[in-house]
């Protein structure tokens, strides 16, 4: 997999003479950079809705043209040598909706694998601060919880696989493993899940990107769920090395609403 984007990209070719415009693809996200008079210019683009990169020669052609507008500019403190892309999980929880909901029987446990689109954090070297933090895929927003005090999340429709295979890995996707235990005394319909990915760190094994494992113990509607961020990669990714820290580190165990879903508030009213 030669297009693994999470590396350092040199601004200059090996001859070191001229800084060339740089172009890196993170899934559908294309990041272009150019150096101009001690300034770094960065441009990001994604195919519009319904298009996929490379879907047709026409689309691909349009993406390859250097854009004339939409560049962001940074004045640099000195000479820079490399562009660095760091992956990060989304900055808000992700509500996962399995294409085929399933029931977790009382006392049962299950592991599901969810592919979560990554964000790209752009930095230059030397230097450590991130200039840009942008999603590879723009996900829709959704609301989780009560309309008066719920929380804003991203929406992700997924297969919620019970196993992961080699072809599931893509450089712009992290595999998030959720281990669920149902201790509620009743069956649990899993049709919505809130994954608190903003609290998860990332690990890398070869070209595979994994998030740390999350364990959720469901104890009933009124009790919420006990969520534990294990801080280590799942057993399926033994030997993986840490790639990026969590955006907002959380205590290892938190009680949060993971399964409870929004009540019916979408009935129409004239108010």
């Amino acid at each position, binding site marked *: 997999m030669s297009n693994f984007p999470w590396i350092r990209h040199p601004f200059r070719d090996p001859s070191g003479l001229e800084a060339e415009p740089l172009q890196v693809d993170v899934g559908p996200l294309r990041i272009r950079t150019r150096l101009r008079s001690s300034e770094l210019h960065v441009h990001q683009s994604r195919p519009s*809705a*319904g298009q996929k990169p490379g879907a047709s020669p026409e689309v691909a052609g349009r993406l390859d043209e250097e854009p004339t507008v939409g560049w962001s500019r940074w004045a640099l403190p000195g000479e820079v040598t490399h562009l660095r892309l760091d992956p990060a999980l989304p900055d808000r929880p992700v*509500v996962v909706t399995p294409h085929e909901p399933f029931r977790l029987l009382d006392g049962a446990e299950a592991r599901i694998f969810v592919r979560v689109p990554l964000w790209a954090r752009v930095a230059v070297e030397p230097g450590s601060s991130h200039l840009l933090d942008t999603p590879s895929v*723009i*996900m*829709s*927003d*959704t*609301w*989780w919880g009560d*309309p*008066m*005090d*719920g929380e*804003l999340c991203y*929406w992700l429709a997924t297969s919620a696989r019970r196993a992961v295979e080699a072809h599931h890995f893509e450089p712009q996707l992290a595999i998030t493993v959720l281990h669920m235990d149902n201790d509620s005394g009743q069956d649990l319909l899993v049709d919505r899940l809130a994954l608190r990915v903003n609290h998860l760190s990332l690990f890398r094994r070869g070209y595979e990107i994994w998030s740390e494992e999350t364990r959720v113990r469901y104890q009933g509607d009124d009790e919420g769920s006990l969520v534990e961020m294990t801080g280590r990669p799942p057993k399926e990714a033994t030997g993986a090395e840490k790639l990026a820290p969590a955006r907002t580190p959380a205590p290892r165990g938190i009680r949060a609403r993971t399964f409870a*879903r*929004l009540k019916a*508030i*979408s009935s*129409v009213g004239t108010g």
Partner: protein
Amino acid sequence: MNSLFLHLASDGLAPLSLLVLQATAAGDPAALPSALSLGSLLSPERITVLIRTALVLGLGVPLVYGASRWLNALVAKRYNPQRGLVAGKLLLYPGVILVVVTTLSELGFSLAPLLGAAGIVGIALGFASQTSVSNIISGFFLIGEQPFVVDDVIQVGDTVGRVLSVDMLSVKLRTFDNRFVRIPNENMIKSQVINITRFPIRRADLLVGVAYKENVERVRLVLLEVARVNPLVLMEPEPTVFFDGFGDSAINLRFTVWATKENFVKLKNILQEEIKARFDAEGIEIPFPHRSLYAGSATDPFPVRIIAADVDGSEAPPMPPESAPGTKENTQS
């Protein structure tokens, strides 16, 4: 009157007004210039008093205002701007009163008679300023009940604006065309107030009319697709399309989507543009009002008279009278 002021004099440090009054009361106007002589005004005791008074005012007022602002910022940061405002004023008003009382005391006023007089004056003012008192009491209710806080967007009558402050007498708003609106607290208590930004998400209801020839189910799917691809539309609560009734010229649909309060206005704008563009692309007709006129029969066509100018400017000959009906207008589109 004289006796009232004379009671206020303290021993040895009578204020200037009292010296004047004492001289006048003694029935000796000639004594007035001597009472106001430079020597008596600039005696060491009096200069000390003036310096002390200046210090109290010079240090006290900035100190009280500074402390009030500091407390306002501290509480606003920890809780919210509304509580900050209230905390700041709870410090400011007693502080100002304290400075005033201390100043008067330094100047030689005895406070007990002053407070007594203030009570009498207060009763008189109370009767004269019932509206203000009502506003103050209403202000307490507004602060206690908190139907809105600073930075909320509210609607009062026809006025919509962002709350700048909730004060003792009035609520101040800034409208979105940047006008300053002051609404007395009493009005706020009496009228209906809509807090537009109280809850984090809002529903936008878009009324969409489509031609009677359209397949409603197809239109519904197109609308839901428009919602699905717009990242500002919340996927839950789900976007919905309701059949709202048979209109004069169109089938009326109510398209409801939810958005965060920050994105609400932007979404409402964008979505209507997207609906129009998508309907155009899908060939879905958005009709405009139709009116059909009949000349007495539902099947016979209208006789139409075409008036064309000749090349030399003269009009075509008129139609024979028997072929010209009373009504020729056809506004059907």
